[in-house]
């Protein structure tokens, strides 16, 4: 039975997202240029929540989409083919500030794949990265612009993000093997 430690509870997650939303608003004066794209699967729910929070701050809706990066992964011939989830980007990303949203930033390879995948939809003016947890161990020169919480981890450990939309209460656990 793996040992599991609570890192963030529901209210801490809510506070972290609110802080990230304010930081995104502070960084981006031209609010109409900002769109959110959640990375499947964990980032999609977070992008929707951030979108609602930003809509409250800016008093206008913020376009939000979802992106599956399976087809752009760099390990496709080293593993079983991953399950596909919908990519829905119902707006043009060209000349927009795209905030990519993911739950956990780890090696950085998913974010690299996401940036490649995003290129197929247009040429954003800039891409920013928001993550709930940064657990370190980067394998690529990628850094998040907005971080909910930095969590030092060992490689063998696992960060488990659970959000109410997909069942259970909001919580982030660090699982030791």
């Amino acid at each position, binding site marked *: 039975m793996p040992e599991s430690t609570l890192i963030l509870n529901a209210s801490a997650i809510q506070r972290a997202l609110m802080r990230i939303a304010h930081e995104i608003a502070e960084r981006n004066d031209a609010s109409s240029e900002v769109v959110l794209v959640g990375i499947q699967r964990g980032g999609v729910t977070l992008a929707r929540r951030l979108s609602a929070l930003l809509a409250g701050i800016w008093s206008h809706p913020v376009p939000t989409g979802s992106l*599956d990066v*399976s*087809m*752009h992964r760099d390990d*496709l*011939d*080293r*593993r*079983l*083919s*991953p*399950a*596909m*989830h*919908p*990519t829905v980007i119902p707006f043009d990303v060209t000349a927009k500030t795209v905030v990519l949203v993911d739950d956990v930033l780890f090696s950085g390879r998913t974010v690299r794949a996401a940036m*490649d*995948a995003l290129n*197929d*939809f247009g040429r954003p003016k800039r891409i920013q990265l928001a993550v709930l947890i940064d657990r370190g161990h980067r394998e690529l020169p990628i850094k998040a612009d907005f971080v909910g919480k930095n969590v030092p981890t060992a490689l063998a450990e696992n960060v488990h993000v659970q959000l109410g939309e997909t069942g259970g209460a909001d919580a982030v656990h660090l699982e030791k093997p």
Partner: protein
Amino acid sequence: MSWNRKHLLDIESLTPEEIITVLDTARAFKAVGERAIKKVPALRGKTVVNLFIEPSTRTRISFELAAQRLTADVINFSAEASSLKKGETLKDTARNLEALNADIIIIRHSATGAPHFLSRFLNACVVNAGDGAHEHPTQALLDTFTIREKKGKIAGLNVTILGDILYSRVARSNIWALLKLGARVTLCGPSTLVPRVFEQMGCRVSYNVDEAIADADIINLLRIQHERQRKSMFPSLGEYVSLFGLNKKRLALTKPDALIMHPGPINRGVEIDSEIADCRRSVILDQVTNGLAVRMAVLFLVNGGKGPQEVGAS
């Protein structure tokens, strides 16, 4: 997610979950085809060989485009222009292609089991693009994809397959796929082309078209495979048209939302009236579009099915 196969040889050996995995994956690839940039790098650096020992245009083009949309390199190999004419065996031909580091070999052959044979000694992935009168798995996958897309489900639907069943690999693959996914399958056509033995697979066999299509949600029409028939299987084409051809009068007897499918190439005025082929209930061109997405999904999945072995090796 359930797919760990390196080959796609037939539908018979697939589980319902594996079929659903292909259909779900194909949905994602269909969305790629609707974008301005229709290409993804999933098979970048891979080599795909179309080994078509039996002539084909649409299936070969569909596989070729599918491979290109996945950024693979594609070689087309046809029997007419090959050393098979000079006496080389299929095994040697396939081994030569593999010596060029082919990663995926797509084979169409007039002999049943040719893909299975290749899969026993090749390291490359093997995809069956039609073997004799045995199976044509990607056709059944694109047909079930189209049915699910249009009807929202497959289980519980009545599907009537009409025409030359005996010589049809499309029929066999479709029967396997549809039964595994919970549809009810009725076969209809001249008794010489629809033997009762198909009842053992779990199908209903009927020789009365009007009765066979009355409750159908899907009517899948098949072409008469003249090239496979060793003798005349029915008196005349004219008689076939009058007894089994789908015309406006027969269509009026069917459910108003019954869909008409055909794997192509269609013979207007034989198995299908020209007007019906172009009517709103015909999804024949949707099948072509979906075929591309399904073949992208198949190439993507078999490539991954090779994966764990490579990890073990590295």
